[in-house]
């Protein structure tokens, strides 16, 4: 479980996050949604400690993260898997080496076991026979998927995915959503997914946090989302005609 308490973050004069509090439960896919530039990625980076918030605290299983020393932080981080918005694969390593990287660094497996493990992660994201390609030789969507494979390689206790299905076709996108859900339930992972994709929100939205202008504007699940009367949330969710149709069919009329 991760608890965020009153987190505020500023870059120079720009207030990006203001007083955000939330609880992310274990074994659940928690989603953070919001417009581009609303501060979702910054929030995720505050939670994992890549940004230090000016105010507020982040608790991992009740322990305050920002008060830990370097070694203790590293110990928690070895249990975090993170997919970055831009994938952040290591350019100088091949696909297989990228996925094996955390295993080599921290695992205690033999080389062949590591390779098996990496292959099975790659298979789950539908990447096969691409072992010796370098990230620059992959499409954006493939990089994303390799990034997910790397994030899940260590069976993390905390999984962060920054826009896992942007740039993916609808089919692969569903595959990734299902995978994230599966892993979360199977291993009791505390999962936080940042997304714009209303499809995946409707598929997996058990706990949704809507960020607007750096504040937590709304919180709930997908059923509550459809019937909410929050103006900004509605503007965001029902921007597309498909979602408007969904709403009409749900509310049975105008």
């Amino acid at each position, binding site marked *: 479980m991760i608890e965020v308490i009153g987190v505020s973050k500023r870059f120079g004069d720009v207030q990006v996050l203001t007083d955000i509090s939330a609880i992310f439960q274990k074994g659940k896919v928690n989603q953070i949604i919001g417009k581009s530039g609303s501060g979702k990625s910054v929030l995720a*980076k505050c939670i*994992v400690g*890549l940004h230090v918030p000016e105010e507020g605290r982040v608790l991992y299983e009740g322990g305050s993260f920002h008060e830990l020393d*370097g070694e203790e*932080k*590293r*110990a*928690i*981080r*070895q249990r*975090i898997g*993170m997919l*970055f*918005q*831009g994938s*952040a*694969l*290591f*350019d100088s390593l091949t696909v297989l080496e990228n996925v094996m*990287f*955390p295993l*080599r*660094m*921290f695992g205690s497996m033999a080389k062949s076991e590591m390779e098996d493990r990496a292959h099975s992660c790659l298979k789950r994201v539908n990447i096969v026979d691409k072992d010796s390609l370098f990230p620059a030789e992959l499409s954006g969507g493939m990089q994303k998927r390799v990034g997910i494979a790397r994030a899940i390689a260590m069976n993390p206790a905390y999984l962060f995915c920054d826009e896992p299905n942007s740039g993916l076709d609808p089919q692969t996108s569903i595959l990734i959503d299902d995978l994230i859900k599966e892993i979360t339930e199977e291993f009791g992972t505390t999962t936080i997914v940042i997304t714009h994709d209303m499809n995946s929100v409707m598929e997996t939205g058990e706990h949704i946090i809507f960020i607007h202008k750096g504040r937590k504007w709304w919180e709930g699940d997908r059923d509550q989302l459809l019937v909410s009367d929050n103006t900004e949330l509605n503007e965001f969710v029902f921007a597309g005609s498909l979602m408007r149709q969904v709403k009409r069919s749900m509310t049975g009329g105008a």
Partner: protein
Amino acid sequence: MNVLFHIGRYLLLLKETFGRPERLSIYWARTLEEMDLLGVKSLGIVALLSAFMGAVITIQTKTNIDSPLIQAWVVGFATRQSTILEFSPTIISLILAGKVGSNIAAEIGSMRVKEQIDALDIMGVNSAGYLILPKIAATMMINPFLIMISMFLSIFGGWIAGVQTGIVDSADFIQGIQLGFKPYHVVYALIKTVVFAFIITTVSAYHGFYTSGGTREVGISSTRAVVFSNVVILFTNLVLTQLLLI
């Protein structure tokens, strides 16, 4: 104020860099890779420069001291002294600061802007140690060899040029090379080389590591890395020379 900030942050980065490595075997494998990338791949330019500079040193020395009062061996002697004391350790290090330093800053800088360093941090890897320590170890181990090769080729280039153009006699030149040779001068040169290798790597890595922004900033970091490495090398050269030679 600004200078103090950079020095402080540089020292803190060094402290991180020399923190406990996660896996020594991985660090060692990375060191070998870096030795190839930063050292062996610099051999060509070092060899080329050294041979030509040695040739020029010899010709210039000869044309400047062409007097019946000065003995014939002086040309070889002067070529050897300027090569060992200054040209190879310092000038070649400055050249390497340009080649290796910009490479290091660009590589680490682009890893920073593409969030790859964040990815390392998130995994719990000591990113500074993992990225920088193997480079420091590699350059400190391989640069002395580069510099010794440079010394040899520079003097050899001088001999070829001198003899081929007929301005010096081969026997005189060789006598000059051997005359009053102090092994300590080579030690002095190698001490400088190792210190300069440390400066090139850490100063450049510092500029790469704290890049923020995008590709434009990577370019800026890379330029800064070269300029600052050069300045620090020149200053350190003066200090070391006073400490070691006087």
